């Protein structure tokens, strides 16, 4: 018989009690993982943002456009290496429930600003040369079964009318946290149509994306850009991409904060569940610990028995919880409206946090029983009747 066998036999002495404890820990780990995944998904835009990209938008509101003429002026500011622009299109693809981001862009500069979107050189040149071309993220392509050469028909709302785009490229994200659901098409295609249909809306862009050489100068360059357009009809607000994304998230900051707190409260619940089990267990075994001590087992042995038992239970619970988390998150995502969270994945840090929390909980849950076992006099333990 080995120490491990003894620990496992002891851990499963009260089968129902320990199974309920393991189930409790598993459920808590699933809940923790789910909440962390929601928070991660919420913050994915911020996490994926680049420190050397600035967003220049209309100072009053993001929904108001900026003149296309700003491009050259922004490009002239020292420290700016590339200026690109994007234009939110909206529109309906298939029906109103089918949501994914659709934006007009400058194909010449887009991919140098967003190297996280991977395309083949053939796809890039095909995208650049056809004015009605578009590129879509692989997740969107999979969702609608899109392939190169397919036509995407859209009904415009912000920009009314029927629109047709030809898929010339399907981009794959550099990492799992990059958005693989977006669609980009030529801003020029949109602008030409506006010149014909509604000239007052021509030569306007949604917002500029500015690449800077030195991220440490972002504040200074942002200030210079905004200064340039001060007192104009369209004043600008420039901020880093991270701050821009944070602006969207911060409107839900209280909810995210509450979810964050709840996720850590769940760790506390795991701790209480396991502490309760371990304290009951150790109390029932007071006499056995005394017998083990009388046979010559030392404090180190008791530490191994008690901590080993607590860790066996907590790590089993964590293991089952983590194993269940993957299908549960996938199931949860399928219930969410499509495109609600462009990135809805369990981050490695969530697994590590769940596993290490269970480990720490196991150690903490062993402290009180261990203290009692170590400080107990053998003669008192042998007299213990429960």
């Amino acid at each position, binding site marked *: 018989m080995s120490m491990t066998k*003894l620990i496992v036999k002891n851990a499963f*002495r009260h089968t129902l009690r320990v199974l309920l404890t393991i189930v409790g820990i598993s459920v808590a780990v699933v809940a923790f993982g789910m909440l962390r995944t929601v928070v991660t998904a919420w913050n994915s835009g911020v996490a994926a943002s680049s420190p050397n990209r600035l967003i220049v938008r209309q100072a009053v509101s993001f929904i108001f456009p900026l003149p296309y003429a700003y491009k050259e002026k922004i490009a002239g500011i020292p420290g700016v290496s590339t200026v690109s622009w994007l234009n939110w299109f909206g529109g309906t693809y298939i029906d109103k429930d089918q949501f994914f981001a659709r934006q007009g862009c400058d194909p010449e500069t887009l991919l140098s600003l967003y190297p996280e979107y991977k395309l083949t050189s053939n796809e890039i040149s095909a995208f650049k040369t056809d004015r009605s071309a578009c590129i879509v993220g692989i997740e969107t392509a999979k969702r609608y079964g899109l392939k190169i050469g397919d036509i995407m028909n859209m009904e415009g709302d912000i920009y009314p009318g029927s629109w047709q785009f030809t898929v010339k490229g399907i981009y794959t994200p550099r990492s799992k946290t990059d958005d693989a659901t977006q669609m980009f098409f030529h801003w020029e295609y949109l602008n030409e149509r506006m010149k014909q249909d509604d000239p007052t809306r021509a030569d306007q862009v949604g917002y500029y994306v500015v690449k800077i050489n030195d991220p440490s100068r972002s504040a200074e360059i942002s200030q210079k850009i905004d200064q340039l357009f001060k007192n104009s009809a369209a004043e600008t607000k420039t901020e880093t991409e991270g701050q821009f994304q944070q602006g969207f998230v911060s409107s839900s900051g209280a909810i995210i904060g509450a979810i964050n707190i709840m996720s850590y409260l769940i760790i506390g619940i795991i701790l209480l569940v396991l502490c309760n089990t371990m304290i009951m267990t150790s109390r029932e075994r007071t006499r056995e610990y005394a017998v083990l001590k009388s046979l010559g*087992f030392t404090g180190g042995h008791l530490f191994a028995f008690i901590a080993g038992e607590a860790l066996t239970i907590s790590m089993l619970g964590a293991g089952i919880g983590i194993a269940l988390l993957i299908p549960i998150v996938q199931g949860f995502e399928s219930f969410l409206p499509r495109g609600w969270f462009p990135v809805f994945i369990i981050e490695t840090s969530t697994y590590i946090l769940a596993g290490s929390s269970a480990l720490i909980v196991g150690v903490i849950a062993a402290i009180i029983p261990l203290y009692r076992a170590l400080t107990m006099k053998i003669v008192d333990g042998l007299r213990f009747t429960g």
Partner: protein
Amino acid sequence: MSALISISHLTKTYKREKQEITVLNDVSIDIEQGDFVALMGPSGSGKTTLLNIIAGIDRPTQGEVMIAGTNIGVLTETELAKWRSRHIGFIFQFYNLIPVLTAFENVELPLMLTPLSKSERRRQVELALSVVGLSDRMDHYPRQLSGGQEQRVAIARAIASDPDIFVADEPTGDLDRVSAEEILTLLERLNKEFGKTIVMVTHDPSAANRARIIHHLEKGDLIPQGQS
């Protein structure tokens, strides 16, 4: 030749709230190698406390306890634990077997503290269980055994590591007459055939009569009664 167990001027006091209670009062006793000693006396006379001190699971307030040349009163807790594992075999009134372990595993417990290999441990456990006549009950759990069989497993556990001294606290106190006789016969065998030193606390005069020396304690004082 010096005694295996030599206790001189042993006093043990407990503090209960503000009151100090003397349980053993200046007790001196020598027990030779191979003796079978019974400690008798009314409840509260200090016999179990004396047994516990000899076994190294309680410490004297004053006095010296020399066992096989070692003053166990000065050992640290860890040293004392190691000393117990080598020198003392415990037999308790309520057997104190671990319920989730089989008879074999219970007997193997003290051997986990030795450097013996798995196969050596197996041989030792099988030998111990055969000495107590339970070779056919190795895979039984305590709940599947009678009280007498449980106590025999406890004795096998005590003899497995081949200690010098056996301490038995009311070993027949929870058993019927027949089982009690079997256990006492077993203890006699350990003493006579294997030369083991046994110190046994008992209330039962017939159990005490199986010992070769009987000591009486009363209110913490040792009163020598004679030899059988």
